[in-house]
């Protein structure tokens, strides 16, 4: 029993140390914003990598998820609600929940793990030490541009994702489920609220910040060789995915109720 408590205590200590360390990095990041001009090329490069680089994948998964949502809604609601409600439900579920969460989770894998393994490799091959020795702050040069790219480009990707999902959901409803164009559009307009888009953008901005920050943090904490890099990438995906799902609950609660 004593051993069990000791183990729980040790794990809790590690957890709180990590949280404190993450907070320290975050403060340092904010502090480095004053040198943003120095890191401008990195910011542009990362915006391109996160935004343009992720666009094909985002469009692909959004297309299929939009169609799947339309089929599921039509199937679930066909006996209870009129056809035009499918349009309403597809739009709201895509904008409020599906696109932000789905893109957040997918990009935790693509972008977050990519950042963790890139920075992890730089750490174990002394490139991070080389930056420090050249009087360049690794947090400012490596972490800050990636976080800024996540904060600004992931909401844009979510807008693309929502658009593609709604269009494919619309196409599927009209072609496969005999819902008329007029009915679908009527449903879309029925209880569309600009506030929903705002909620989706707030969520995606937060998830963008979380997944890039966690990826960069895990990368800079890497120790050892190839195994350490692999562990960092795995931790980045696990931690950021968990955080995205947990934060989704709190954000939904705060923004919708």
């Amino acid at each position: 029993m004593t051993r069990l408590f000791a183990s729980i205590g040790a794990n809790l200590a590690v957890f709180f140390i990590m949280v404190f360390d993450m907070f320290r990095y975050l403060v340092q990041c904010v502090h480095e914003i004053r040198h943003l001009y120095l890191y401008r090329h990195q910011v542009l490069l990362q915006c391109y990598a996160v935004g343009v680089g992720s666009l094909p994948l985002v469009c692909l998964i959004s297309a299929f998820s939009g169609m799947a949502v339309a089929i599921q809604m039509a199937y679930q609601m066909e006996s209870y609600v009129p056809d035009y409600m499918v349009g309403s439900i597809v739009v709201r579920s895509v904008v409020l929940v599906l696109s932000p969460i789905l893109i957040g989770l997918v990009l935790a894998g693509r972008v977050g793990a990519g950042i963790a393994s890139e920075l992890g490799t730089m750490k174990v091959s002394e490139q991070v030490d080389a930056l420090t020795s050249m009087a360049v702050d690794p947090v400012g040069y490596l972490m800050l541009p990636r976080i800024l790219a996540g904060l600004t480009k992931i909401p844009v990707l979510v807008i693309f994702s929502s658009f593609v999902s709604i269009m494919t959901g619309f196409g599927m409803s009209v072609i496969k489920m005999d819902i008329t164009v007029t009915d679908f559009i009527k449903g879309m307009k029925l209880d569309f609220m600009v506030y929903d888009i705002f909620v989706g953008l707030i969520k995606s901005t937060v998830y963008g910040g979380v997944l890039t920050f966690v990826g960069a943090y895990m990368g800079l904490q890497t120790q050892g060789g190839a195994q350490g890099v692999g562990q960092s990438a795995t931790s980045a995906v696990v931690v950021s995915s968990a955080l995205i799902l947990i934060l989704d609950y709190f954000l939904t609660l705060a923004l919708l109720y």
Partner: protein
Amino acid sequence: MEHPKTAISFENVYKSFGTQAVLQGLDLEIPSGQITTILGPSGCGKSVTLKHVIGIEQADSGRVEVVGHDMSNVRQRDLITLRKRIGVLFQSSALFDSMTVKENVAFGLRMHTKMPEAEIAERVHVCLDAVKLAGTEERMPVELSGGMRKRAALARAIAMSPDFILYDEPTTGLDPNTSNVVGDYILKLQNELDITSVVVTHDMPLTRRVSDKVALLFNGKAVVQGRLDDIESSQNEVFQLFVDGRLG
């Protein structure tokens, strides 16, 4: 003969990582304008010693002083200024693998100076020429051999015209010919730039060629330091064991 001024000093420095004690009361003086070689078996704390000089590691206790700055409480602004004066050649070369050779060498100049691009290009050319790598500007580090990577890293280290160059295992992983070439460059840069150099190595032929002063690290301490001739003639037992490959 006038004694050279001390550029870097370690006074009773202790450093541990978890339960592993690496430096255990290190006392070491590095004179300015000379090449000091820190010798020692693998894992004795040579690279950690170098990292204290650039402030990547902090001593648990004791005092590390670099040109008058106490590294345990140096102001951030002074630390940045100090780092700009130090060029480091890392054991693994540590070239930025997402950049070309030219971008690597130009990195410090672009980050810390307002030099126009034409001047930066000229400076890069001069630095690469100094290490016989002219013509490799557009190549990626992965396209270079081990020796060429070391030389490219050396060109990056000298690009900001440093007052100090720290070499961490400059010949590790290189064949004897390339090791000789790296040794030539260490001497050439020392003569041309009039700098303070610290070479961390366990390569005795390199040590014999380049060193003005030698220190042997063992069990976290400098067990012997001085001119190589004096140490060898003193028949120091620990040093002899190291040279014979029986220390550790």
